[in-house]
């Protein structure tokens, strides 16, 4: 498997399957780990960083034969951006410098980032609401690496991380939600406030510092110390997510009952624009795709299914679009290429 193979599929997190997939786009768990007795990247010299990289890359590739390993210092910016768009690495990991890499499992359910903010970040990612399956996979991957490489651990503080906000379990559970009806009924701020009161962070699609484009919101835990991994995961499974999913479904029902014309107009107007426009930005595309996804799950939009929707969402992003065309393009060119792609896919 190589990087170009990725562009032939939509990957795991955008399958549109899994529990509550009408509202939950994907679930993710990541663990932050650092090698014992080594400096964190903040103070590591170039040779320290290379040594940490070599050490972890050997271990990670030996533990997983089928995985694809990518040396991020070797590949070009578009490939790194492609990995960000597929949620396999973070924006910071793509933009950083020096020895760093990522190991991606077949099916893209697991990625191990080397020399991100911490020496190792083990990530599990799946479509819909599947935190239990993800935790099993991530926990196993963590045990495999730690079996031969001692990790920085303290009996009081647990796993030691570069930033004290991740210390303890080093776990970050994130669930990406599609909440168009709550935004239309103007209830989204109330939900976001309630989530913040429960010590959760509410962010856009690509994590920290990104905006919620296309009604996609990412909810993640902030407390990583003094709770078990299971408690943190269970708080999402039993309390938080089912409740928000119910709110969103109720808001969709209310819209369908009380404002069916407004709802259908929103959906079909978006479809009209997507299938006729001659220039579209990624942001506008994702904003227009949002009501269509809701329409598909509500049975009000039947022109295509969620599988096609996922392709449109992923391949209209800058790096995917450039990969499809095989050339590097500026923003204006991309806007034209994006609308051409959409018209072509929507006509056929």
């Amino acid at each position: 498997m190589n990087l170009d193979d990725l562009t032939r599929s939509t990957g795991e997190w955008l399958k549109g399957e899994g529990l509550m997939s009408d509202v939950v786009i994907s679930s993710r768990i990541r663990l932050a780990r650092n090698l014992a007795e080594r400096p964190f990247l903040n103070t590591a010299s170039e040779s320290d960083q290379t040594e940490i990289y070599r050490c972890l890359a050997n271990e990670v590739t030996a533990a997983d034969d089928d995985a694809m390993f990518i040396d991020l210092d070797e590949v070009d910016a578009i490939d790194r951006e492609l990995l960000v768009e597929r949620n396999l690495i973070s924006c910071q990991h793509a933009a950083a410098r020096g020895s760093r890499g990522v190991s991606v499992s077949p099916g893209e359910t697991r990625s191990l980032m080397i020399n991100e903010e911490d020496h190792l970040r083990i990530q599990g990612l799946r479509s819909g609401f599947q935190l239990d399956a993800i935790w099993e996979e991530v926990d196993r991957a963590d045990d495999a690496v730690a079996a031969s490489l001692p990790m920085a651990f303290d009996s009081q503080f647990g796993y030691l991380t570069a930033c004290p906000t991740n210390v303890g379990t080093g776990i970050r559970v994130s669930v990406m939600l599609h909440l168009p009806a709550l935004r239309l009924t103007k209830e989204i701020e109330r939900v976001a406030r309630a989530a913040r009161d429960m010590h959760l962070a509410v962010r856009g699609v690509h994590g920290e510092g990104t905006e919620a484009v296309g009604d996609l919101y990412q909810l993640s835990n902030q407390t990583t110390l003094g709770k078990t991994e299971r408690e943190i995961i269970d708080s999402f499974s039993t309390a938080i997510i089912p409740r928000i999913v119910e709110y969103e479904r109720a808001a969709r029902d209310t819209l369908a009952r009380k404002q069916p014309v407004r709802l259908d107009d929103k959906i079909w107007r978006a479809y009209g624009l997507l299938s006729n426009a001659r220039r579209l930005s990624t942001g506008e595309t994702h904003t227009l795709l949002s009501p269509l996804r809701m329409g598909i799950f509500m049975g009000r939009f039947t022109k295509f299914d969620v599988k096609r929707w996922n392709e449109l969402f992923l391949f209209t992003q800058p790096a995917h679009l450039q990969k499809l065309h095989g050339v590097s393009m500026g923003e204006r060119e991309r806007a034209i290429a994006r609308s051409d792609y959409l018209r072509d896919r929507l006509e056929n």
Partner: protein
Amino acid sequence: MQCERCHQAKATVHITDTVPEKTERHLCEDCAESEGVIVKHQHPTTNEVLQQFLKHKMAASGRDEIVCPKCSLSFHEFQLKGQLGCPHDYTVFREFLLPLIERAHEGRTRHIGKVPKTADEAIHRQTDLVRLRRELRDAVADENYERAAQVRDQIRTLEGA
């Protein structure tokens, strides 16, 4: 009422002793102070305020200048970047990191989650005990006595080990 000690100033401090027997005394402020009954409130002098301020400042700057012998990161640099330099920083800056960690993690400062399989048996046991004691507290608070009894037995087994 006049002060019963100096018989000059007005008595403003009234003391009732009950041991060994009930007696009453009425003193002026100065006499009460000289007998050690009260300590008159004194405003600190400007010099004292300045001394205190400098002491505090020195303590703060002393903290900022603490440097980790392993990675050479100072606490001040950590405050600027928000990132620590090496695992040893958690030991070197422990007392200054604690309040920050407490704030970031809902008041919690003790790990009760996963422990590396390769860690000492003592660390595994210690972490399990902390977690179980908390579970016991929660079970009692929820009046779930059946669960509390189970947890208590687990704690006893671990403590006996």
